[in-house]
């Protein structure tokens, strides 16, 4: 507005004032239009400034891409390479993102010996390191170790926040709880976009790039196994695990849930999950439930196994057992 007045003054200084000038209104309109255009351009440039830093925008194919289960290998490859470039740009780390497929004749199951677990939480830290969970955010850990008084399996009596000097505590046992990989998962039923589903090998996965972040699945899970990324994960490059899987431990964007996925990027290559690799007491047993001579079948046949919250009718693939 002030500039408009200045223009007026200038024009008055140069020429004697005229009360009526047929051109003046046209000129004023022209100036105003010019001013508007300049403001619009500068605003646009200011707003679009961060866009110039955006080197690797999604291609049209990716923007309009199909659901994960219908992606062709070529398109999937484009997506994986772009995630790699994004991690390089945003986290300064060189990583490999793969998408291993389910193995034929394999259905994963987990058994956990509650008589052996001593509550050291080594599995929790290994899981965080493996799955690129920011170390400063222990609330995002997939595994929650619950300290339970002896002689009960009522989770209401448990305490996940214990912080003793030494463990195990007298009269307590420890129950690590993560995603139970249900056969009838409530979380996938409530998802409005089919961004979470159960794979043929029995692992419920999340397509982080398809999810809209509605958090219905968090509410649906009876085991509180899902965590939500309220903020963008902040990880230093040397903390990043460069061995990533698309459905498992790629660095999640802000605004999507995440949960235990049985370390799919490891287990589909035959390796053990990270939590099992580090367990100091050997409480964890992982394997293929379809293998008649496997460890899981041995435990199911020889031990009295429990599932958590059987009344929820979720039929978990995660079994707990006690032992003398």
């Amino acid at each position: 507005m002030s500039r408009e007045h200045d223009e007026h003054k200038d024009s008055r200084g140069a020429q004697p004032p005229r009360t009526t000038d047929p051109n003046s209104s046209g000129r004023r309109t022209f100036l105003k239009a010019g001013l508007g255009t300049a403001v619009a351009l500068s605003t646009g440039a200011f707003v679009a400034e961060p866009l110039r830093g955006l080197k690797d925008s999604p291609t049209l194919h990716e923007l309009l891409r199909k659901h994960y289960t219908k992606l062709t290998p070529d398109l999937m490859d484009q997506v994986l390479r772009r995630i790699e470039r994004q991690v390089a740009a945003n986290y300064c780390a060189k990583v490999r993102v793969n998408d291993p497929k389910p193995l034929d004749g394999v259905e994963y199951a987990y058994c956990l010996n509650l008589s052996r677990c001593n509550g050291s939480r080594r599995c929790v830290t290994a899981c965080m390191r493996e799955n690129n969970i920011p170390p400063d955010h222990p609330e995002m850990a997939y595994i929650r170790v619950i300290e339970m008084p002896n002689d009960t399996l009522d989770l209401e009596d448990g305490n996940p926040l214990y912080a003793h000097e030494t463990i195990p505590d007298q009269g307590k046992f420890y129950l690590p709880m993560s995603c139970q990989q249900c056969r009838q998962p409530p979380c996938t039923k409530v998802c409005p976009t089919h961004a979470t589903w159960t794979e043929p090998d029995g692992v419920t996965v999340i397509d982080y790039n398809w999810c809209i972040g509605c958090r219905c699945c968090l509410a649906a899970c009876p085991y509180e196994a899902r965590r939500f990324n309220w903020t963008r994960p902040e990880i230093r490059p040397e903390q990043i695990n460069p061995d990533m899987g698309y459905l498992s431990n790629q660095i999640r964007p802000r605004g999507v849930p995440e949960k235990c996925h049985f370390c799919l990027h490891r287990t589909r290559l035959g390796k053990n999950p990270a939590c099992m690799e580090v367990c100091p007491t050997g409480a964890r047993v992982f394997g293929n439930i379809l293998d008649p001579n496997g460890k899981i079948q041995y435990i199911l046949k020889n031990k009295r196994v429990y599932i958590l919250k059987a009344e929820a009718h979720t039929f978990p693939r995660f079994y707990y057992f006690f032992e003398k």
Partner: protein
Amino acid sequence: MSRIPRIKNILYRCAAALCSALVFSACPSSPAPDAAASLYERDVSAGIHDITPLRGERGPLRLHVDDDAFECSGCHDGFSGDLSEAAIEGEHKNIVFAHGRNLLCLNCHHPENSDVYLDHGGGEIPGDQPTLLCAKCHGPHYREWEHGVHGRVNHFWDARFGPEKNLDCIQCHDPHHPRIPEMKPEPPPVLTRFDHPAKGDSAHEPGA
């Protein structure tokens, strides 16, 4: 005259909102580093987890003193004399005995060849196979260990991809006091709004 700028203003605002929405949804909050040379490349060929067993790698039967390992036969040419716990002096005085009733040296160590273990009937168990010694008494645990159900199993769950590794008994258990020692737990998670306070948590009891 006054209507046109207002419409323009509204248009500009809409455009700005659209642009900012586009930018903030697509662009990360921190500045993107451009130099490809600064990329951090982490070597994970050896794995990123410390999978050292509780008691580390254990070799054959030796006396370990300050990172040195001595063969038993260097001092003992078989055992003789008083073989109860009270006889332990000198180099062996640091041994803590808490293995139930199994407190006599010659229950496990061979009386004549000090570099091997004692099998049933006076036989010898090689000094690098202590698992067979434990199996003398702990049959059910040994059976489960063979199935990979007792004790930690490392590396591969599927033999088609690679070998699995059952840890030996003494990589986790000290044979003289086999109970797993107490440890310091890793830090607990912080309470989020989705977590429920535990029963008996005084901070959440009414009146606390």
